[in-house]
């Protein structure tokens, strides 16, 4: 399984692998926000936590169809199905690879982007933590969506339509933690719920993803 992880990471870092794309997209979203809502610092301050979460979420969405589609197209996915690793393991590794190359870099970059959006200073820590806790869920849920649509030629938009409603709980609690952290309010409840959702999806969703991949490989 480690071999699979290393292979996926290597593939994505290579040229054409799309590694920096998510970060670049995140930067673009952050840059476009003031154009959309006006440069007033007070406004930006209020919405910064939410925009960072939205931007991270949308950037994650971008690289989702790459998780499985490339392997599906060249037959590698079928080979993986016959490998000694269970398909659930494959799904989990794929999600992990996605997080390492998308969610994690976004989380690390978020404080820098927070500066651009005038995030209140108290907010930096908890916003980053909320992203760190929440983005794994985004990767796992995204992998499920990718598994459902892996057989489709241009499934990108459908993938977004399916995955975005599933992101709602993570987004709500994650952004809530970030907001409350910024305002100095109690954030334990949303943080616990966010962590709960992430843990549950990481543990359970790979089964559904594996089922979907097997169905598509038939």
């Amino acid at each position, binding site marked *: 399984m480690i071999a699979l992880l290393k292979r996926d990471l290597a593939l994505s870092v290579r040229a054409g692998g799309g590694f920096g794309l998510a970060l670049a997209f995140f930067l673009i979203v952050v840059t476009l926000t003031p154009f959309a809502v006006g440069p007033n610092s007070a406004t930006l301050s209020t919405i910064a936590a939410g925009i960072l979460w939205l931007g991270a979420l949308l950037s994650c969405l971008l690289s989702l169809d790459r998780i499985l589609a490339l392997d599906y197209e060249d037959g590698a996915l079928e080979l993986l199905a016959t490998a000694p690793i269970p398909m659930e393991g494959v799904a989990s590794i794929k999600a992990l690879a996605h997080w390492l190359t998308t969610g994690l870099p976004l989380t690390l970059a978020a404080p820098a982007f927070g500066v651009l959006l005038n995030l209140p200073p108290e907010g930096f820590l908890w916003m980053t933590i909320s992203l760190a806790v929440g983005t794994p869920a985004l990767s796992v849920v995204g992998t499920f969506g990718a598994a459902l649509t892996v057989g489709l030629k241009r499934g990108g938009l*459908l993938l977004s*339509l399916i995955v975005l409603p599933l992101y*709602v709980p993570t987004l*709500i609690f994650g952004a809530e933690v970030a907001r409350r952290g910024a305002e100095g309010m109690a954030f334990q409840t949303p943080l616990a719920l966010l962590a709960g959702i992430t843990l549950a999806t990481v543990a359970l969703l790979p089964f559904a993803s594996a089922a979907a991949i097997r*169905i*598509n490989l038939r």
Partner: protein
Amino acid sequence: MSERLPKPKSLWEYANPRRFMAFSGFLLPFVAVGTVATLAIGLIWGFFFTPDDYRQGSTVKIIYIHVPSAMIAINAWLMMLVASLIWLIRRHHVSALAAKAAAPVGAAMTLIALATGAIWGQPMWGTWWAWDPRLTSFLVLFLFYLGYMALWTAIENDDTAAELTSVLCIVGSVFAVLSRYALHFWNQGLHQGSSVLRAGAVTGTDTEEKVSNVFFYPLMLSMIGFAGFFVLLILIRTRTEVRARRIRALQARERMA
């Protein structure tokens, strides 16, 4: 084909397409008549023969379409969930097709609930839309319906589509429940308190604000009528799906012959 089918020994035998077509064909006219009757009586009674609410004026009449449509919007998804489970576990094609048939009905009901809710909300809350958790969860539900229907349409192979959409329905249901709690956490909302009705108010378990009897009976009739409408459409649409599937099977056989 006029041979009498032997009496079914269990409910599961209705999952057989031929038996399903026979049974649903038999039921159809009764459901149609029953639906038209209850809907007509319920709505006409509610619209023409009930008084205005002292606080909400004549807008209270929207209750006869808003509450039933919201109820069906949710129950349609539940039915799809059960049908999806039956497909995955017992492999009855009719079940998968019934879920597919139900989705547009549920989506339409969700739209009706949203529209009537917004129209009712305007004079009551002073705004067309508010990110109240109940309204928002219906919006999210609508998105779930869209994703489900889109997945069915996108996949060519019937059986693959049935499998994948059922998995989506099940996972989606879990997230729908999660979202509901998340939304209530996110915003306490306007639906609460003395503003508009809650489920408790309708059934009378909530003593603070109870729907008085004068509204209750036409509301019950409307709800039954809407439910009948849902069943009617499921029957019609599933029959269409069963036929469509048979057409594709025959065409496939032709191509191979």
